[in-house]
């Protein structure tokens, strides 16, 4: 039993931290309330360390921190083995970028209350104070994310996904005092629920098709019996439902409105956390289906081959996804990239531009998903390309949103604090706020994929993996799209650097919360450091992407058999 628990130490640590944070939130003294942020941070750090130290690995691996060598490798009973190495990498990434996001969250909800309490107009009322709750929501969402990573069962996956997204609905609702975040919350919640329902139904059909909810068992079943139509329908529905999480095309509609409505730091959070959850879940499900099917070179006929009900079989030496899944993903990826970039060209609000750019980046990552692990090296393994790109995107995007969060305009009509909205607010930022301005320049050029910066090193493996998998047209679409993206990223990068500040607009000041500027600086530093010395992260991603398609399902002593545990009073006639 202790084997399975080893997976959960990070989540447990995080959960404990959440509880402590919520309790601290209720204390009367301001200092204790302020401490809740630090405790949250501590929790995340602990989770990160534990993830690195304790998560069981496939091979014999020594823990980088303590040098402690793990006992014998992972067994299917303990956790999913198809993409086992991914788990520690994802959790450490979540912890790292979660810290960055946490830094930006300071003062999102409790700014007026604390101000009034500090000014003595109001007395602290534990019932009404929601600072700690906000941190709790953040930590709950991150715990959900970590749980998604270590999921090895459909049920676990469903719960983890729900745990990740429910807190985000609330965070969006309470992120700013204005109506816009209420509207964003409405759209996000209802469409989110619809998305959840869809992928739940997908899970149900997958269970129906295979008879198991355990991912290893499902993988084993697909390997032996092939993917029957029912399970294919289930997989497609699941993929569609998860498209909502990563904001892929048919499900992307909520993204611009929600990112614009919510506060910049919450949008930054939304740009990373659900996207990572979505991609991890996709990797798990598509990993279960496997990349060993007859290549699409066998022509589209294989799509409609057979008398329908006959399952699509594994092909010896096959390197692609089942044709139907590959085509669906291909269409989704191409549309996502194009729609994301094309609509971003027209936006005047910075947050909407970043929203569409996050859609586009999901499209780029889908290329890695379609190509899958063609080889084992970093340049020919789609999974590692995605994992590296997620980390890179997380750092770049958080930097951009942190800059927006760190800026604000004077109080508008209803007395609410105005945000830095349009491009005109950013004019001459490098002159007025050099540090923030340059962070925005670095992050947007990196998002553009300009060579010396991190974004390019994220896109390069996607190029090479796409070519290695023979998806040349998709790579060309990827190339053209990053060229289209160049237009609005250039605008984003060079409005602060080049355009002179026009005196007309209201003065842009820095938000009183130092944490946001620190987060921006950290992420820019991250981009620069990773683009110069990203090699180690790439090696980590390469290991994390290790794909074990036919891991031996060892007959373990206490098999999680699929027939019900015999009931005590079961009598066999």
């Amino acid at each position, binding site marked *: 039993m202790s084997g399975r628990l080893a997976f959960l130490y990070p989540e447990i640590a995080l959960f404990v931290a959440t509880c402590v944070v919520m309790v601290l939130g209720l204390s009367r003294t301001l200092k204790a309330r302020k401490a809740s942020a630090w405790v949250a941070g501590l929790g995340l750090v602990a989770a990160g360390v534990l993830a690195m130290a304790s998560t069981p690995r496939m091979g014999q691996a020594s823990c980088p921190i303590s040098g402690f060598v793990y006992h014998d490798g992972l067994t299917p009973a303990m956790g999913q083995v198809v993409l086992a190495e991914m788990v520690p990498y994802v959790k450490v990434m979540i912890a790292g970028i979660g810290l960055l996001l946490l830094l930006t969250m300071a003062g999102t909800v409790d700014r007026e209350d604390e101000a009034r309490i500090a000014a003595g107009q109001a007395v602290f009322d534990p019932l009404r104070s929601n600072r700690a709750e906000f941190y709790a929501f953040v930590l709950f969402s991150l715990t959900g994310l970590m749980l998604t990573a270590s999921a090895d069962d459909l049920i676990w996956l469903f719960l983890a996904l729900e745990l990740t997204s429910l807190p985000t609905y609330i965070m969006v609702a309470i992120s700013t005092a204005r109506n816009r975040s209420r509207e964003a919350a409405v759209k996000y919640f*209802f*469409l989110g629920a619809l998305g959840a329902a869809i992928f739940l139904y997908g899970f149900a059909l997958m269970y129906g098709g295979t008879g198991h909810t355990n991912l290893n068992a499902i993988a084993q079943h697909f390997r032996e019996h092939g993917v029957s139509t029912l399970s294919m*329908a289930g997989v*497609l529905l699941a993929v569609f439902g998860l498209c909502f999480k990563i904001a892929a095309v*048919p499900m992307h*509609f909520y993204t611009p*409105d929600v990112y614009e409505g919510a506060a910049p730091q919450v949008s930054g959070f939304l740009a990373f956390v659900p996207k990572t959850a979505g991609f991890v879940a996709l990797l798990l499900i598509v990993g279960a289906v496997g990349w060993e099917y007859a290549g699409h070179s066998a022509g589209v006929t294989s799509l409609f081959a057979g008398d329908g009900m006959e399952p699509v079989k594994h092909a010896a030496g096959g390197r692609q996804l089942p044709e139907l899944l590959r085509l*669906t993903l291909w269409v989704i990826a191409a549309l996502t990239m194009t729609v994301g970039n*094309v609509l971003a*060209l027209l936006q005047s609000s910075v947050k909407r531009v970043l929203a569409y750019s996050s859609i586009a980046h999901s499209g780029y990552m889908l290329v890695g998903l379609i190509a899958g692990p063609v080889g084992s090296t970093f340049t020919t393994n789609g999974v590692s390309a995605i994992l590296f790109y997620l980390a890179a995107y997380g750092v770049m995007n958080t930097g951009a949103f942190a800059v927006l969060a760190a800026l604000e305009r004077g109080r508008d009509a209803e007395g609410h604090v105005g945000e830095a909205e349009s491009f005109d607010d950013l004019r001459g930022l490098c002159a007025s706020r050099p540090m923030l301005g340059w962070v925005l320049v670095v992050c947007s050029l990196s998002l553009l994929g300009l060579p010396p910066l991190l974004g390019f090193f994220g896109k390069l493996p996607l190029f090479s993996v796409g070519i290695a998998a023979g998806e040349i047209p998709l790579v060309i679409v990827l190339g053209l799209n990053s060229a289209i993206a160049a237009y609005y990223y250039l605008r984003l990068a060079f409005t602060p650097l080049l355009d002179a500040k026009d005196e007309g607009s209201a003065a842009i000041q820095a938000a009183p919360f130092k944490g946001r500027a620190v987060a921006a600086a950290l992420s820019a530093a991250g981009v620069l450091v990773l683009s110069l010395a990203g090699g180690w992260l790439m090696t980590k991603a390469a290991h994390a992407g290790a794909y074990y398609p036919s891991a031996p399902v060892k007959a373990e002593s206490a098999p999680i058999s699929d027939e019900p545990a015999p009931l005590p009073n079961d009598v066999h006639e």
Partner: protein
Amino acid sequence: MLDGLAHMLVTLGDGGALSSGIARAAAGADLIKLVPAITLGATAMCGVFAAMKVKSKLPAWFSVASLAACFGVVLAVFLGHDGTPRVAHAFDWINFSWTISENRASVTHDLVSNFAFYVDSLTLLWMLFVTGLAALIALYASEYMSHDVGAGYCRFFAAFNLFVFSMSCLVMGDNLLLTFLGWEGVGLCSYLLIGYYYTKDSAVAAGKKAFIMNRIGDLGFVLGLMSTYVAFGTLEYDRLFDLIGRGVDGAGQPITGTWVVQVIPFLFAIGAFGKSAQIFFYVWLPDAMEGPTPVSALIHAATMVTAGVFLIARLYPLFAADDAKLALSFVAWSGALTALWAATIEMAIFDIKRVMGYSTISQLGFMFAGLGLLTPTGAAYHTFTHAFFKATLFLGVGAVMHGFGGQLDLRRLSGVAWMRGFGLVGVAMLIGSINLSGVPGTAGFFSKDMILAQGFTTPGTTIWGAQAVGWILLVTAGMTAYYTFRTYFRVYVGPKEFTPGEDAHAHDDHHGHGHKEDFDPTTAEFDPHPPGAPMKVAIGLGMALTLLAAIPYFMGGHAARGEHAAPGGWVGGMVAHSSAAYNTPHEGFSFLGLTSHAAMYFISAGVGAVGLLIAAYLHGPKGWQGLWIGNRTEAATSRADALVPLLGRVVTFARNKWYVDEIYDFLIVKPLWVLSHVLYFIDQWVVDGLVNLFGAAPGMTGKAIRPTQNGELHGYAAWMAGGLAVVLLVVILVAT
């Protein structure tokens, strides 16, 4: 290679000191390297003078001294020359080699063209009169250009020296590429010198026109040059002549009858015509008269225009290698037609300087006809004599123009020779005219006669229609005599009368005072400004040389060294020992028992006399000056005016130079202008349009998709459901 460079640098400064070295025994061909060195040094010095804003005539004296030194060097080399061509190597230029392995054997190919000088008698012949005349004209120009001493002066002499440098490279080049360097160099200098009065738009346009027309010819030259390289694998004359001598190309295949001997000579002929202003390319020469007269005298009369003749003479073995002699026939015919064409124009126009320009074109036609009719000696000798008498004529015209404030219209000048200080000019013009029209006994007569006679001796089989060419030339000789003496009788003799030209006072707007409007030419207080001492000396020398040019005809060439006296005297000897040697066919028809040459003496003299008398009758003044048959009393009118209505449109056509300029403009310049406008339109709208379309495509698709993002929750849900439905449909499709 480095020592060659050092050697050139050493001689840079001491142009003058060298003259003492002439007496030294000829140091062989290496001495010839001094000529380009000195001229390049002089150009640099003029540049320095310009930078130092020298206000005196120093650049002029420096140029005259250095050009004289060059003449001395050439003379020294000539004296020491024993007839065998030798190469003087200065330094490597475009010279690299590479090895290519062809089926196991590695063959080294190379492209060798160095700054080296091929000295044979043809080169020396040409260099003699080029450097000689250059020194003479530099002396003349020192005074002619005196009124804009200062920056302009230095610029003039810098270009002058650069011209002589380029001409020397052209003539003495040991490979076709160096010749081409000289070729374009002289084109550049003619561009700079024609456009010397750069404030006059007509001068700038003329310069541009000259350079571009030359460039068109140069394209022919370059293509010929490249074909030679491809055919023979080399550009150097000595290796080239050796291969042609053996009748094989670079790869050892025989070349007779192949494209090598048919196409390449044509290309070089086109190049030659471009430079020497022949049949289709002559339009730039009359406009080149915009430049100052010394320029016209040197470049557009004596030296540059003969470059074409020199090129064909130099590559004569190639031209002659073709049995059918197609290229030579083409050269002969184009020469004859050009001569005739130019002659017709000269008879009609009034500008005495342009008359001289057209006469140069016509005489060049003679020279090319000579080359075409297999008498390189005749052509060379005619070039030799023509250089001198045409230079003298131009110097005379220059003195008149200088004296009368730019007046060049023969209807406004008369009796110039009798005016104070213009006596020498009158005599010079007389001598020049009798040479040009081929009055017997003069050098011009002998040289022209060799070509005319050859027309009737070369059998029609070798050169297609040789007789017809001969007849055309004969008629042209007559017309030449007429138009030469037409100007002489109208301008230099007869009653003294003149009206100064329009830039009488302003001389040149350098002085920047006195607008043109307030000077009206009729005020009589303007007195003609006679040529000064340097001009007089130059004209005198020119006159002397013209007269002396007849002597080489009789010198018998290198008879002294035991070879049989080649026909054409000294020049014949020189040509015989050079690459242009060719045993010209001798037996022609015999007329009244005389050989063709002897007969031609009388026939051409007769034709010349006829032309002279007609000119005297139509244009000659009253009394002895008009040979008692003319009756002109004043400058403006003459008997010829009566002929105009008879000839009707022909005269107006001729006077407007047969509208050739307009035809070119209409056929080539206008369509190109329209084409480029169309291309620019295409570039802006079609090519750029397409690019912008690609640029705007994402934006447009964005606008198309944008309505889906209308903010309504249900809209979004509908789209999501739509997507779901599509997927389920596909699954069902697969299932059944």
